[in-house]
Every structure is written in structure tokens, then in C-alpha cells.
């Protein structure tokens, strides 16, 4: 039996079970879903709704098959069952964008990308498009009305009829080509959270689509809502059928068995899902570090070797250790969160239920574009399966990684740990809905005696030390765009905490029995707009604040003008009306409060939360830049600060007295303070005039000055410390190339003022050794004039910023020179102190 068909069959059954009221327990039901190959065939009663319109049904079936065939081409497996979700089958957001382009061609009509993301099953797409196709253009975006007539099922009164009409099942049987379809789990990362939402692959069609998509984007309220707009209320609303599905999913929690209290001891055997994800992999390591537990990791893979390889690859990609020492404390379980019993054999399931004493659910599909239906299998049903496991066998606590997305309603007033969650009908994005549904379902599970901890991170920023970040996370894209374009949208708070903090606190909760069973906000200290602007200014990036709409339009325009493949996903998010609502709610939301978390952290003696400031973000930003997302200031940019330096002196052939005049007129510039502090390097341009080398002036093709290179360690044993090192590549008028290497040295001598100005130089032809040597000096009278008074700063900055830049440079450089000059004197002084008499030891035994 082809796997995809089976999955589709399972889904159909699962949905029927959800709505029907059989007396089976959840586990029985899930097991039935798992066991039943294609029970859809014996389920004709689901179809009666369609009896009326046979031609329409055939059309629909044909269209479904056609869509499925097209969609299959965008999948790694090459096939898609008509009632299988495109994303669950391994489709990525990029592939979805391409698919929409192809379908638009096929159907000859414009298709709303959000529509595909909301529910990407070919059968349901066909149904919706057929329905909307019959209506006049004016009502095209609201398929609710016509659908009610055309396919009479989805009426709110009876949740059961929200199901896709039974027609889907025969279509599934007839529409899928025979043959074996590879396992969906073999799909590339993308479907389930560990991998996250939008792969970064370049997407030409992603850039090409905006023309078609923008009209929809301009009307954010055009979210299809079969229930119709509610009179006078312009707030965005969830789709009726999604709400019905959510309610049905919540009801699943009622089937959980009643369970006893877990033994209140630190865990010894932990089941962890999502260990290949960004947070999950960090949490895995923190659990290992801070407990003595053995961790079982559920990994989506065909077998154990593949699972181990996948986990190792994930840990390495996040710069986490992956050694025999890590492997000896974990066991990988190949499985799939979305399947009944986690896709494990019955025996493994029961062993786990008996032996594991803590369940930590991190896995979730994180995709802001996909709809609830496409996310529920991972985010809601998966969480319920974990609850089932926690309640079966030995009672164990369930620690669920939720999200502050459960508050992500536009206009919510507070986000405390015990504050009411958002109104689910005002959550527009499927991701928000699925996180809300999972947490609410698990709250119901608490009534069955299950100890459920909800841990809600906000944005999860990159690691403060390793810089590892989640390339698929929205915040990575936003930070990159801020730095690239030097603009930020006006937001109220950023509830972002670095991943090391989030995972450390989560691990502390898992390991502390007295902390179990409550809700925690792992949001750290929220940053205000002012904080962020100041942080970026400190890093030498002066940003301008824009209104959200202005920023979005501006950023989209810039991303189109100079496309950055790594940021294509940000463009897609900014064009999706649904995702925009999510962004808007996030940006206008209040600061998350973390009173309980802070109290716990304090009681456990962990360091208190610190704001995720520019220092903490530095490594992440460097890695973002190295990976092509962000961009560091570069020497080709307009410099941030620059000044002139003139030197005069003489050189001569090596070994001979320096008698020929030589002068340099250089411009020293900085692209940013970052360059100075991190690389200790200054860019150089200008001319060297040295008749002994070449009669004409030599132009600096490339030049650098390093301040106190290698901490000023002398070339040779001695007290001649290096203050500055100049390295210039020169070209003469005839095209010859030369190098110039110069050093300013600090010595324990009284001519300190001259030491700061005298440059010992060597000049040679490129690739050869030095042929000239000598010394050039900055004349004392030009030093202050050029290098202090003559400092110029990027005129685009405000006056205050310019003054700050100049002062920062002078303070930094002055301190460095002071330290460099003091070095040899300190060593000489130490030699003097060493002459002091060394007394015989006065103390023996106390």
C-alpha cells in the first residue's frame, strides 16, 4: 500500500473519529487509525452530501487529480495523494510558491497564495476553486457563499459535515497512480518544526510572484471566511472551518485517561521530541549537562542509523558538541510525531510508557504561512499523542514548549504567565491557532490529572557565544533586514531571548519537580524600540525608524531591487496577508511578563535574565553575515569616519643609509566601529611619493593598519613592542606593484611623543623581499591638525551621532595607544621590582 494513500486514509478516519462519538479511548482510536489501511472504502455514509451533483463531482475529481499530479512534481516523493496535505508530504514553502505559479497557468486564474497555505490538500483546493470559479468576479475572494450552495457540506451547525465530502475518498483511490510512493518522512527538512518553515533556497518564482500577489496583500481583510464578515467588526477573523477543526481537536483531550501524580524526583529517563530543531538541540545538551538523565530522542528518519546521522548533523550545524560522550547518553528512536504512537512499534511505545519518567515536547511545525489544517498533525495531534504517552504506564510530567503566539491577537493588553490566552477566533495565522489549540488541549489534559508544564518562549535569538541561530526563524530575517537596510519598523517590544537562555531555563524546569505543572514565559527581558535603536548605533549601525506599513513597503521594494536569496523567505512572509497579521500582532503586542520564571530562576541560583543586547547578539550577527543574510559594513561602503595622515622621512636601499626623501599622504578610514573593535583594523587609501622607488607617485591599491597587532608582542625577544602595523599594496605609474610594510614601535624610552609618530618602513617589489628601508614621521604640527581636528564623519548621520562617533574613535584609539606605550615601561619597572630583596619565608605552618 502506498504510504501516502495510507496517510490520507488515516487522516480521513482520524477526522471522522474526531467528529463521531465512538466510545473508544484516544489510544485505541489512534491505534485504529494507524492500523486501518484504507477504511475509507467502507465509509460511504460520509458521502451523502454530494449525491445531487454528479457532473460537478466528476469535474472536481478530475481537477483534484490534476492538482495532485502537478503538486506531486514539487515533492521529493514525486506524488501526492488527493487528500494528503502538500506540506505534510514534504512540500516546502518555496515549492508551494512555485506550485501556485504553475497552477495559475493551468487554471488560467489568479490564486491566492494564502489559500494554498491554509489548506493544501488537492481535493480541498479543487473544491474551493470550483466553488469560487462559479461566482462573478466581484465576490471571487469570498468563496463562502457559493460554496454553501455548491458543496453543501461546510455549514457551521454540524461539525461533522465540515469534513471534505466523501468524494475525496474515491478520488483518492482513483486519482493516485498505482505504485509505491516513498515514505513521507524521508522528505527533506521542512515539514516539521525541527527544520522549520521556509528553506532558504533561491526562489526565482518567489521574486517573480509579487505582481500577482500584491493586490491580495493590499487587502488584508480578504482572508476567505465562509462564515462571512461579522457586522461592523473589522478585526481579522479565523476561518470558520479552521475553528471547527480546532474545537474538534480540543475534544480529543477529553479522551485521555485519568492519571496519577508523577513521582517528584529529577528525571532519569527523558523522552525529547524535536531534538533536531534549533531549540530542541540546545535543550538536549542542556538536559544532558544539568541532569544525569538518559535522553530518548524521537527523530524523523527511516531507521536508527539515519536518525543518529540526522541528529548529529543537526547538532553540528548548531555548533553543538556531537561526540561519543554525547552519544552514550542518548538513544534515538526513529519515528514521527504526527503518527499514532509517534510512529513507534507497540512494543517500543509500551516500553517508553513504562520506563520514561519525563516527556519533553519541543517538536512543532513552525511555519507562519501554512494554515491550521496543515499544521495540526504536528502541533496539536502530536502534543496530544505525547500527553497520551505521559498518561499511560508510569505517570510522568509532560513539558510542552508552547509559544507566546498563544497571545498573538491584535490589541491584546497583557501577556502575563497566568493571563487569559488570545481569543482563538481572532488568531488568523495557522501557526498561532495550532499553538493555541495545543496548549488549550493540554490544559484540558490537566483536568485528567496529567502534570503539564507549558513553556512559552517568545522569539528565540541566536546563541550568545556560538552565534548559532535558526535560519528559518522570522527574527533572523528581521535582524538581517534591519542591519542591511538600516531601518526598523516601529514596534513596541521585542520579546526575544537567546536560545541558550531559553533552553537553560527550560532544562531547569524539567529537572526541578517543584517547578512542574505551571506556565512559564521564557521571554527574557523584552527590548523596547529605543533599546534596539541604541544597540544598533553602538554597533556603528545608525538606523532610522519607520512606520510598519512604510517599513514593509520599503523593505519589499529593496528586496526586489537587490534580491538576496537568503532573505527570500522574509519577502514571502511580508507578502502574505496572514503572516502579516501575525507580524503586526507581534510588533504591537505588549511586553511579555515572566514573574514566575524570574522567581524560579532566582530560587535556583541561575543568573538573572539579561536583555538580548548588541553584545549578546554580536556572534549571531557575525554568523548571519557570514551566511549571507546580514551584511557587515564593508570597506567599499561610504566610510563611517575618516581623516588624513601625512608623513615625511627618508628611505634608502637595504643596508645603506636612508638618504632619499619619502613621503606618504594617506587617508585612514573606518567602515564601522565594529571593524575597529573586532578586527582592530583601519582601511588605508592614498599615495606614497618615493623617488628612490619610482619617480612618480605610488598609489595605494589596498592598505590596512592594525592597531597593536597580536597584542603588541615584539618580533624578537626584547622590549620593542609593536604599536601599529601598516601593510600597503602599491602600484606605480608603469603598472609595477610594490608592498610597503611599516611599524610604529613602543620602547621604554623617553621619546614617547616621537614613538607615536615614527613609522619604520620597508618597501619591496610584490613577491620579493625588501629592497628599501627607512623611517617616515608624521610632522608634529600636522598631527593634531589632521588626525584630531581633521576627523570627518559620515554626513548622513545626525550631529549628535557624528560627535559621538568622533569621541568614540578618539577614546578607543587613545586608550589603545596608551596601553601599547605603557607595555615596555611596565616590563622595565617589573625588572626593577625584581631587584628587591626576596625575604626568607617567615611562615612555616600558618
Amino acid at each position, binding site marked *: 500500500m502506498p504510504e501516502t494513500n495510507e496517510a490520507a486514509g488515516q487522516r480521513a478516519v482520524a477526522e471522522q473519529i474526531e467528529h463521531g462519538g465512538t466510545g473508544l479511548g484516544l489510544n485505541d482510536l489512534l491505534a485504529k487509525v494507524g492500523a486501518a489501511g484504507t477504511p475509507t472504502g467502507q465509509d460511504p455514509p460520509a458521502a451523502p452530501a454530494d449525491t445531487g451533483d454528479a457532473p460537478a463531482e466528476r469535474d472536481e475529481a478530475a481537477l483534484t487529480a490534476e492538482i495532485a499530479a502537478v503538486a506531486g512534481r514539487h515533492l521529493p516523493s514525486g506524488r501526492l495523494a488527493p487528500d494528503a496535505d502538500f506540506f505534510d508530504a514534504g512540500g516546502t514553502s518555496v515549492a508551494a510558491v512555485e506550485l501556485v505559479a504553475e497552477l495559475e497557468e493551468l487554471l488560467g486564474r489568479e490564486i491566492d497564495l494564502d489559500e494554498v497555505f491554509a489548506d493544501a490538500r488537492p481535493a480541498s483546493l479543487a473544491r474551493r476553486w470550483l466553488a469560487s470559479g462559479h461566482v462573478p468576479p466581484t465576490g471571487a475572494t469570498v468563496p463562502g457563499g457559493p460554496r454553501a450552495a455548491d458543496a453543501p457540506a461546510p455549514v457551521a451547525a454540524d461539525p461533522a459535515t465540515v469534513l471534505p465530502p466523501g468524494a475525496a475518498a474515491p478520488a483518492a483511490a482513483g486519482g493516485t497512480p498505482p505504485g509505491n510512493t516513498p515514505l513521507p518522512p524521508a522528505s527533506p527538512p521542512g515539514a516539521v518544526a525541527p527544520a522549520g518553515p521556509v528553506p532558504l533556497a533561491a526562489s526565482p518564482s518567489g521574486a517573480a510572484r509579487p505582481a500577482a500577489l500584491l493586490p491580495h496583500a493590499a487587502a488584508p481583510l480578504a482572508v476567505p471566511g465562509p462564515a462571512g464578515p461579522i457586522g461592523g467588526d473589522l478585526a481579522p477573523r479565523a476561518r470558520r472551518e479552521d475553528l471547527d477543526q480546532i474545537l474538534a481537536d480540543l475534544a480529543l483531550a477529553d479522551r485521555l485517561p485519568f492519571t496519577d501524580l508523577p513521582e517528584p524526583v529529577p528525571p532519569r529517563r527523558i523522552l525529547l521530541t524535536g531534538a533536531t530543531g534549533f531549540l530542541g538541540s540546545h535543550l538536549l545538551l542542556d538536559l*544532558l549537562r544539568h541532569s544525569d538523565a538518559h535522553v530518548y530522542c524521537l527523530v524523523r528518519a527511516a531507521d536508527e542509523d539515519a536518525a543518529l546521522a540526522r541528529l548529529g548533523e543537526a547538532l553540528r550545524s548548531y555548533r553543538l558538541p556531537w561526540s561519543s560522550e554525547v552519544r552514550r547518553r542518548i538513544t534515538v528512536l526513529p519515528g514521527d510525531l504526527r503518527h499514532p504512537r509517534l510512529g513507534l512499534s507497540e512494543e517500543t511505545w509500551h516500553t517508553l510508557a513504562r520506563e520514561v519518567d519525563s516527556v519533553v515536547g519541543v517538536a512543532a511545525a513552525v511555519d507562519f504561512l501554512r494554515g491550521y489544517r496543515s499544521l495540526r498533525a504536528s502541533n496539536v495531534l502530536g502534543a496530544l499523542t505525547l500527553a497520551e504517552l505521559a498518561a499511560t504506564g508510569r505517570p510522568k510530567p509532560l513539558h510542552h514548549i508552547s509559544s507566546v503566539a498563544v497571545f498573538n491577537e491584535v490589541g491584546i493588553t497583557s501577556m502575563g504567565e497566568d493571563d487569559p490566552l488570545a481569543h482563538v477566533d481572532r488568531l488568523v495565522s495557522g501557526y498561532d491557532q495550532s499553538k493555541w489549540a495545543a496548549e488549550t488541549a493540554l490544559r484540558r489534559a490537566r483536568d485528567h490529572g496529567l502534570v503539564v508544564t507549558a513553556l512559552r518562549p517568545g522569539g528565540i535569538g541566536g546563541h550568545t557565544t556560538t552565534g548559532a541561530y535558526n535560519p528559518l526563524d522570522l527574527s533572523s530575517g528581521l535582524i538581517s533586514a534591519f542591519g542591511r537596510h538600516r531601518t526598523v519598523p516601529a514596534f513596541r517590544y521585542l520579546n526575544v531571548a537567546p536560545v541558550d537562555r531559553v533552553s537553560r531555563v527550560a532544562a531547569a524546569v524539567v529537572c526541578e519537580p517543584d517547578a512542574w505543572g505551571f506556565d512559564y514565559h521564557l521571554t527574557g527581558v523584552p527590548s523596547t524600540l529605543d533599546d534596539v535603536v541604541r544597540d544598533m548605533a553602538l554597533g556603528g549601525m545608525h538606523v532610522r525608524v519607520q512606520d510598519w506599513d512604510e517599513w514593509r513597503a520599503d523593505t519589499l521594494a529593496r528586496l526586489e531591487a537587490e534580491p538576496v536569496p537568503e532573505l527570500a523567505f522574509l519577502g514571502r512572509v511580508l507578502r502574505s496577508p496572514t503572516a502579516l497579521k501575525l507580524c503586526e500582532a507581534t510588533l504591537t503586542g505588549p511586553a511579555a511578563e515572566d514573574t514566575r520564571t524570574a522567581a524560579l530562576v532566582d530560587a535556583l541560583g541561575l543568573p538573572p535574565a539579561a536583555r538580548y543586547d548588541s553584545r549578546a547578539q554580536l556572534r549571531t550577527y557575525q554568523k548571519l553575515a557570514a551566511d549571507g543574510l546580514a551584511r557587515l559594513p564593508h570597506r567599499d561602503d561610504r566610510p563611517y569616519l575618516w581623516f588624513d595622515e601625512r608623513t615625511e622621512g627618508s628611505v634608502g636601499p637595504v643596508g645603506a643609509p636612508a638618504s632619499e626623501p619619502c613621503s606618504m599622504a594617506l587617508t585612514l578610514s573606518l567602515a564601522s566601529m565594529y571593524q575597529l573593535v573586532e578586527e582592530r583594523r583601519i582601511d588605508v587609501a592614498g599615495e606614497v611619493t618615493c623617488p628612490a622607488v619610482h619617480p612618480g607617485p605610488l598609489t595605494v591599491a589596498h592598505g590596512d593598519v592594525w592597531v597593536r597587532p*597580536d*597584542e603588541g608582542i615584539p618580533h*624578537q*625577544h626584547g622590549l620593542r613592542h609593536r604599536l601599529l602595523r601598516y601593510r600597503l599594496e602599491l602600484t606605480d605609474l608603469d603598472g609595477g606593484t610594490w608592498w610597503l610594510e611599516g611599524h610604529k614601535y613602543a620602547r621604554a624610552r623617553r621619546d614617547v611623543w616621537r614613538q607615536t609618530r615614527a613609522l619604520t618602513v620597508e618597501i619591496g617589489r610584490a613577491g620579493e623581499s625588501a629592497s628599501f628601508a627607512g623611517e617616515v614621521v608624521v610632522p608634529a604640527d600636522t598631527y593634531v591638525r589632521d588626525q584630531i581636528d581633521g576627523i570627518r564623519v559620515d554626513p548622513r548621520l545626525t550631529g549628535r551621532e557624528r560627535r559621538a562617533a568622533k569621541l568614540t574613535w578618539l577614546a578607543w584609539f587613545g586608550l589603545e595607544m596608551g596601553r601599547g606605550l605603557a607595555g615596555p615601561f611596565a616590563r622595565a619597572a617589573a625588572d626593577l621590582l625584581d631587584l628587591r630583596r626576596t625575604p626568607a619565608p617567615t611562615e612555616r*605552618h600558618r
Partner: protein
Amino acid sequence: MIFRTTRTTRPRPALRRVRTTPTPRPLRHRLDASRVEEIPLHAADGVRLGLTRVDPGDRGRPAVLLLHGHTASADMFLLPETRNLVDVLLDEGYEPWLLDWRGSCRLPYNETGRRYTYDDVALYDIPAAVSHIRERIGDRPLFAVAHCIGSLTLSLSMTAGLVPGLAGVVSQGVFLTPKLAGRTSLRMTVAGELLRTRIDHIPVDFRTVGLWSKYTPLFALASRGADCPDPTCQILHNSAWGTGASLFVHENLAEATHDRLAQLLGPAPLWILPHLRRIELARTVVRWHDGDHRYRALPANALDAAGRIDTPVLLLAGSENGLWLDSQKLCRDVLAHRRPELDVTYTEIPGYGHLDTFLGRGAALDVYGHILDFLGAHR
């Protein structure tokens, strides 16, 4: 007067040693005693050292020499309360050898013995241990894993050519280019100069000196701004023997390790400061003895002689190293510029300080993997 500086009880006089010589106190470990072989090693200048071989049960394994830091001892690789480096090496097919060089707290020299400088360690102790191990293991490869001053002195031995032919060296914390924070260096000098006529070592265990002693002001100074009330932890974690640096990330130590820090780290001698200061101000390992020809085998400046290093080197450092800062990164950079032919790699361990790279409860997860990878690549 409640506080009287004159003692009410006279300190017990030390027993004059007429027949016994200093011997290392017993190791604290959880290995089978029959597997631990203590070798009475004497350096070429007659100083008694400690050398320990842990018998892996089979022959033919590559040997790994572990060098502790100053005032620590071989115990730092044998912590019974956590997964320690010796456990890991035994499991991965190596034969661990542990040297207690003369700066070990298992030996009495830091507190009462005769004085020494790091020159003595580089010239006598390390070569003596290496040649003894070589006699025993024949031509099997010999690696060295060294921490802090153990690594610094090893670099001096290596550049002097006294320990040729090592299969690989893992250096933690500091190697050829020691660098202290300016503040640490200044406090070290000021405190050292003020105290040198009064005391000759700084104890770390309050219980050995009592509440009211001439060390009390030092402990009081170390407790300023400290989060942890344990005086031993304060003088190490918060102050690094009064210099104001921090030796480890507090959170990384297991509670049991934290409570026995005084066993793991002994008193620090003050008379070593001049050599340490000379090294630190030069940002290079330099020889102390200029005119003493017994030491002429050592280079005056180890960095200038770095060309004699004939083995791959892995430089490890915790990202939060509060004592030696980014010395290892500096060393990598300097050697890359000056000796590009050397096989030197640098690995930073995120979230770790100095001592916790070996004492930390998660060291096996975060640190030893890098060591094993390196040893595995060169065995």
C-alpha cells in the same frame, strides 16, 4: 578586646624531617586500587614528584600524559563525582598517565618546600616524566593534555626540544602567549609586592588558617561582591588568589566539586609571582634564569623558538576564561603569522571558564569530545 591578633594557642611546631622525604598525599578517585600504579619519580635535580599510571587492562594503547595546573593536582582529572577525563580516555582506548609536577597540591613545595620557578618545571619535571613513560611504553605514541601552567611549562619544554616526538599536544587555557587582563596584572603586582615580606603563600582553605589570621584581609577582599558564601569559592571564583580574575563559571561545577575545591586546589606561593609577571608582561613564555647556565637548554623566549615544536597542537579555551582571557586565540593568530608551517588549531568552548573545562560537571559533553577528536585524528 575581642579581636586579638596574638594567638591564644601556640601553633604546633612542624616535625623535623630527618628520615622521610616529601611524598604525595594519596589520590582521590573511584578506580579499582589495583589499576592505579603510583611511581616514585625523582626529577633530575632530586625533587620528588608524583607519576601515576592507570592500567587500562590491555597493552598496546597510546599513552596520554595529563598535566595539571599550578596548585591543582592529578586529582583534577580523576574527579569521582563526575565523568572525568581518565574515565573517558580509558573508554576510548588510551592509557592515561598523570604527572604531579612540583606545583601540585599533593606535594608540599607550594607551601613549605624549597622554591622553584617555571624554568625548573620545564627543564626537570616534564622531561623526567616523559622519559620515564617512554621507557615503559616503548614506541607507542605519547600524547600530552595540559592545563594552564602545566601547558605553559610544556610549551617551554617543547620549544627547548626537551620532549621531542610527542604524537600531539592538547593545551587548555594558555600556551605560548599568556595574557592577563590589565586589572588582574596590576592587582597581582601590587598585592604581591605588598605581601611578599609578610607571607609566602596564599591559602585557599579558610579552615587551615582559622578565622582570624594574617590572611583574613585577603579573604575579606575576595568576598567583595561575591554571590557564593563559601570562602574557598570566593578566593578562587571571585578573586583568583586576590587578583580579581575568575577561575571558573560557577554554574558549571557540580555541587560536590564545589564543596571540595579546597582539596582540589592548594595554596598558591607568592614567590612564583615575579616569574609569572615577567611572562605575562612579555605576553610570551620567557625564561627566568638569565645567568644560570644550568638552564641554558631553555630558550630565552619560547615564542622565538616556536619553530622547534614538532607536533600538532590543539589549543582549547573556554569562551569565558576569566584568567587567561583569549590567550589561546592570540596564540593561534601569532603562530599563524609567524610559523604558518605548524599544525595548530584553536577550539573555543562556549560557556566555559578556565578550571571548569576539566572540573565542570558537563566537561565530558562539551570539552572531552574535542580532545578525543584530536587524539583520534593523530593516534
